[in-house]
């Protein structure tokens, strides 16, 4: 490693990346430092962005929630952002442990682009637009155009993730995941479900069960027709179960060291059924 720049402002980060477009951006370090410690990666140039104040903020604009790339998991859970984007808070709550959540950021989850990145299904279900800045100015894209493969993004040299802009629908949001314990767990399967009562739609996205972060669009369209939007009645068990099966059909899981394809497909169906029942129950929001 020949140089480390600690950017103290967005302009400093942009300048450093313009000067060294092949520099590796370091945010909370929870992914990159693991690889550096193991000797798997040896970046020549590093630009640290954890102390860029512009990236650490979030706000609401035009009924969209704009979350800076440097917002940490702890901040997603413990600030008013948790009310503005409840599923993001639920997902953040399932990441690692307190010190990991103090360090890890939304932008880092995006940059790593793992299928098991827990905020990614939430971003997909909330129609996120990813905002990046770089030598060619600002670009915006949906998650599908940002995450282009397993740990692959469409970021160009010199570009930096600035923020994600999320919908703020009127309706319940759920994030659920499966793993071997209740902390320090990388998802074997994850799911975000968002109900939008104004648009009368349900949106559902999946983590850790495909190369990307698929939306279960067929299941979404089907279930929107089954829901009695006017009465606010809950969904019956038959609808919830069939929704689960239809969502599972949108997954394309593999066998790996963390789980099997068959278990993941089963888990996705269970999570989808559970999330739908929670989102359309008459009671108050339950914990994920």
């Amino acid at each position: 490693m020949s140089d480390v720049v600690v950017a103290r402002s967005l302009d400093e980060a942009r300048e450093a990346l313009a000067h060294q477009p092949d520099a590796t951006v370091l945010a909370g370090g929870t992914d990159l430092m693991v690889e550096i410690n193991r000797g798997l990666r040896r970046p020549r140039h590093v630009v640290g962005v954890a102390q860029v104040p512009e990236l650490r903020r979030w706000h609401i604009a035009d009924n969209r929630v704009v979350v800076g790339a440097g917002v940490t998991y702890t901040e997603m859970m413990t600030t008013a952002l948790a009310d503005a984007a409840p599923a993001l808070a639920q997902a953040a709550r399932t990441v690692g442990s307190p010190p990991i959540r103090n360090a890890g950021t939304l932008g880092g989850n995006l940059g790593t682009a793992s299928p098991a990145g827990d905020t990614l299904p939430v971003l997909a279900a909330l129609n996120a637009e990813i905002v990046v800045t770089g030598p060619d100015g600002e670009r915006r894209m949906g998650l599908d155009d940002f995450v282009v493969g397993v740990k692959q993004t469409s970021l160009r040299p010199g570009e930096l993730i600035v923020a994600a802009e999320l919908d703020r629908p009127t309706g319940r949001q759920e994030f659920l995941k499966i793993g071997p314990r209740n902390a320090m767990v990388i998802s074997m399967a994850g799911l975000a479900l968002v109900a939008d009562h104004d648009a009368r739609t349900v949106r559902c996205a999946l983590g850790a069960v495909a190369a990307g972060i698929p939306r279960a669009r067929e299941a979404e369209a089907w279930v929107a027709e089954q829901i009695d939007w006017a009465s606010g009645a809950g969904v019956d068990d038959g609808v919830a179960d069939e929704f689960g099966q239809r969502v599972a059909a949108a997954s394309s899981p593999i066998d790996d060291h963390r789980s099997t394809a068959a278990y993941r497909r089963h888990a996705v169906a269970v999570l989808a059924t559970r999330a739908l029942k929670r989102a359309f129950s008459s009671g108050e929001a339950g914990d994920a």
Partner: protein
Amino acid sequence: MPDPYSLRVNGVDCEVADSDLAESLLFVLRERLGLTGTKNACTEGECSSCAVLIDGVLTCSCLVLAATAAGQEITTVEGLGDGRDELSVVQEAFVHEGAVQCGFCTPGLIVAVHDLLEANPEPSDGDVREALSGNLCRCTGYGRILAAVHSAAATKRSQP
């Protein structure tokens, strides 16, 4: 060799010279500055035996690129006692409750418990389990650790 940089650790400015910029804060604390209280185990954020406070925020020092911590206030387990040879209330409680077996996880736990009690003076069992969910003890001593946290919390609350 890159230019030396300075880290502020436990209130003291420490120059880090002849280092490789790829070194983690954990490595620099132990191998460059001789502060071996912070333990090196998994080096991937799974065990929290390397936990420190950076600007008051609980952090795994193995996941911090040391050079990026210049200018921040770093507090290690050595900096938590009330004086040079005094144990903190949390450390005393760990001793009294027998919450130390092999001792390898203990410094990280002590730092994490300080952080917990700073924010939450009267934690429930669930709060403690959540706060320490990233601290792995392979001697399976969690029962006594839980007792030590409650004991430390009670002692702190009884102090003026």
